[in-house]
């Protein structure tokens, strides 16, 4: 049962100017139907690459992805992607941006009127039904991201792939969208893989958090089960001990086990910061 989406032995090597570059190595992950997975890891470790392989936009050098019993070999609407910078077509209205996908996916199965209703329904889900005929340049960043999510949802994908969907938004807008996403998720029970840099977001939304080690040749470091009951309430969770424990675990992975490569470089060059980190380590040991 636990293999609706099966990523097995995936690795990828890019051909770059300075020779081959191994970005990913031996990624194994089995995902249940209806599961919400977060991918977290330092910048440049290969999260987007994993997502693009599942989307079919990149071809894995070795290993492969099986979704619902079928091998992934090209992009398709059953693996809809929500892009970090919304990627709405600037010359189409909100309605048309969602419609362009719907018209392709349901070309044979829905009538014109049904499509229209479906497009409007999906825009209602993300609370964007008030701006159907506006152009992307006429709405805010948060609204654009909502439309991007509606476009993906409207394709009725088997897996929804989101690459830092809220990364470019301010904290308040982000919180609103996270709530919207949880609401939609509890209704539709989608299978979701979401990349994020935000630890709170990962714990709040996910069933499991997949933490990736640093590249090159990045792989899955640890997987954390988030067994908080749903529906989750962000304010209530702030005082929940288990929530904070989970949060701590992700932070520990990111900041202790997988030092940011940029930090490592800095330490190599500067003696003072080296000393400083030694001091802080001593303090930590004392505290323990």
């Amino acid at each position, binding site marked *: 049962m636990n293999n609706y989406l099966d990523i097995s032995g995936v690795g990828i090597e890019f051909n770059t100017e300075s020779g081959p570059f191994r970005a990913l190595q031996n990624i194994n992950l089995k995902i249940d139907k209806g599961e919400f997975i977060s991918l977290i890891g330092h910048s440049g470790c290969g999260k987007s690459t994993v997502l693009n392989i599942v*989307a079919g*936009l990149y071809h894995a050098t070795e290993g492969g992805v099986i979704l619902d019993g079928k091998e992934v070999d*090209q*992009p*398709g*609407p059953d*693996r*809809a*992607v929500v*892009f970090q*910078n919304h*990627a709405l*077509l*600037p*010359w*189409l209205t909100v309605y048309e941006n969602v419609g*362009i*996908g719907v018209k*392709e*996916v349901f070309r044979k199965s829905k009538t014109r009127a049904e499509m229209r209703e479906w497009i409007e329904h999906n825009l209602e889900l993300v609370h964007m039904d008030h701006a159907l005929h506006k152009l992307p*340049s006429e709405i805010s960043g948060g609204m654009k991201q909502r439309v991007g999510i509606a476009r993906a949802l409207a*394709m009725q994908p088997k897996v929804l792939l989101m690459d830092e969907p809220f990364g470019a938004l301010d904290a308040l807008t982000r919180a609103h969208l996270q709530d919207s996403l949880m609401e939609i998720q509890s209704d539709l029970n989608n299978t979701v893989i979401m990349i994020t840099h935000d630890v709170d977001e990962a714990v709040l939304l996910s069933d499991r958090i997949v933490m990736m080690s640093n590249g090159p040749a990045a792989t899955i470091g640890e997987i954390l089960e988030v067994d908080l009951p749903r529906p989750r309430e962000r304010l209530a969770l702030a005082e929940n001990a288990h929530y904070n424990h989970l949060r701590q675990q992700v932070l520990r992975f990111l900041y202790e086990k997988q030092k940011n490569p940029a930090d490592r470089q800095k330490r190599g060059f500067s003696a003072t910061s080296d000393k400083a980190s030694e001091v802080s380590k001593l303090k930590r040991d004392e505290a323990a």
Partner: protein
Amino acid sequence: MSEVALSPRWAFWKGRASGVPAGARLMKQVKNIGLPFAGIIVFLIFWQGTANNINTSLGQFPGPVQVWEQSVNLYAEHKREREKEEAFYQRQEDRNAKKLEKNPDAKVKIRDYTGKATFFDQIVTSLYTVAFGFAIAAVIAVPLGIVCGLSDTLYRAINPVIQIFKPVSPLAWLPLVTMVVSALYVAENPMFEKSFLNSAFTVALCCLWPTVINTTVGVAGIDRDLVNVSRVIRLPAIKHVQKIVLPSAVPMIFTGLRLSLATGWMVLIAAEMLAQNPGLGKFIWDEFQNGSSDSLGRIMVAVVTIGLIGFILDKLMLMIQRKVSWDKSAVLR
């Protein structure tokens, strides 16, 4: 102290310009209309001054005043020629009518008027030719550019050819085009004059490259995310071009088309001069050969006209771009 010392006139300007909306609007008008106008006036004065000091074997170099006089002359000649033409046909009709009166079975025919083409006839011919040549080029160049932009393989294959032919002067093409046209175009009742086709094809050959190159760059530079959106949706190729490629490449396509039209217009005049094909170029050449004291003035009228028409053609393309482009807020210049 210094405020008091300001002259009343200066204080007036200062008051108008500082922050008051009406003053700001006035300043904007000065900037938009006043400055170009002042520029033209200064140029005309400078032109007249310089022209007065240049003496050629055909007399003094024409200044704005002479150009104005010759424009009036050319218009008068044009009207006279038209009247002659009308009179010519009228005479034929009268004669034929008389003939038919005497003998209803008489064969009558109307001969074409073969008077000299006036300046305005030449303008029309040139416009017509450049439009035809440019249209041929656009019809080939835009699709070719789109295909090159979409396929890196094809681009690599075609790029060397483009790079080699791009810098070729139109005048180098002209003899080849002339020979090919006269060899291949042997229709019974030719729809077009051969000289017309020669000019038009030469224009087309030179118009191709800017549009091909800019379209290619525009299409190849489409946002990767938008291409990925199309791949995820699995848009069919035609819809991909129509919904994603064309709208994003429109600005670059038009940049190319505008460059092409400007090139084509320049090329046409040169080709007409060299090949003695009817048009503004021939007008200039004929006047030069003519060598009367008015010739330089008349040539200068043609020069100014060529410039004005080039300018208007570019504005026309801009207008079309505004119509076609989705981004109405883009600043087009």
